[in-house]
């Protein structure tokens, strides 16, 4: 995880005819966690997608060293497959493993033979988080990670993110909910709205 970096410089994002934000800049080094806050529609998800390289910024640059993983509202797990087999696909693509105790901590150990389409919103979110963890990247982008999670799962995710940053990872969390993480930097996107 050493040597990962994420910095943006004078970033602007336009969706359709609307300029969502402009003049945005920050720099993250290993161990940093940044929460992007702001009301709905200020461009939090768009910013994460720009950081992930999925969306082109309207202006400005993103400099990223290290692989990136993204958690959003779509779990990217095959709906009709049992959860275990859906994980197996990503396991083969990523070459990473799903440790039994990690799945148990996320409450997924008993769900591995349940087809993904029968999982609840929170269970899907937890499954997507397990997939993101197994990817083993030094940078994690979390888009509204607490949505749909119960308090136990939310605290598991918080603890895991804290441990991830402590081990030298970079986490960017887009959420309008408070994210109780020690040393979390805050960035209110509405201040950069134009």
């Amino acid at each position: 995880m050493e040597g990962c970096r994420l910095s943006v410089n004078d970033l602007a994002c336009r969706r359709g005819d609307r300029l969502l934000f402009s003049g945005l800049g920050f720099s993250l080094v290993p161990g940093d966690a940044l929460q992007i806050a702001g009301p709905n529609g200020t461009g939090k998800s768009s910013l994460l997608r720009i950081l992930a390289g999925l969306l082109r910024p309207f202006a400005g640059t993103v400099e990223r060293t290290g692989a990136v993983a993204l958690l959003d509202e779509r779990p990217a797990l095959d709906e009709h497959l049992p959860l275990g087999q859906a994980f197996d696909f990503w396991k083969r693509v990523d070459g990473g493993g799903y440790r039994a105790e990690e799945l148990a901590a996320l409450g997924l150990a008993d769900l591995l033979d349940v087809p993904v389409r029968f999982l609840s919103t929170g269970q899907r979110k937890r499954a997507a988080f397990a997939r993101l963890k197994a990817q083993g990247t030094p940078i994690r982008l979390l888009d509204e990670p607490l949505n749909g999670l119960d308090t136990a799962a939310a605290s598991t995710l918080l603890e895991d993110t804290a441990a991830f940053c402590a081990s030298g990872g970079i986490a960017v969390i887009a959420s309008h909910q408070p994210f109780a993480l020690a040393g979390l930097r805050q960035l209110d996107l509405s201040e950069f709205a134009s």
Partner: protein
Amino acid sequence: MSALLTILRRDLAQMFGGGRRGGAILPVLFFLAVAMLFPFAVGPDPVLLARAGGGVIWVAALLAAILPLDRLLAPDLEQGLFDQFALRGIAEEAVVAVRLLAHWLSFGPPLMIAAVPAAALLGIEGETLRLVELGLLAGTPGLAAIGLIIAALTVSLRGGAALGGLLLVPLAVPLLIFGAGALSTGGEAGLALTAAISLLLCAIAPFAGGAAIRAVREG
């Protein structure tokens, strides 16, 4: 490379397995249904059936190619799979090329097998059947490529499935002219041209599909 093989395995399992609810079997049944309806509609005149039968098989294959369009890319895009592939540095073009191979395997060979009972229903035999089978071998990769390009272009549209069917018909006309035309001329030239068009379409499809998927993301 191993990631692409994993993706190919998944695509094939989805198309042949229960994943897309009989994705591969439905076009075959539709193809056979069209071949079966034709003798009912024009009557049991064996001379007429044998003359028109090859063309009917081609039209049936073209119509069957429309059926799987809406399931080719849309579910995976909605589920965010293409985003996750992109994050891992797997190019959209590569994913679409793999999808094209899987789509043809689930569509071309089954149709060629189904053409044998269809030929029996239409009273085609011998040399004509051989030409039909060779024509389908040459033409179905092109049909698969057209289908994939259209699926990628219409993936973000509501009601894209119906539009996709309409779009496929004119684009497939060259394949139909040369593929079915080889039946009446009996020449290899028509088959060669069909194969050439197919090759061209297969070469374009990954790039057109990849560009379309990126455009949807920017949308």
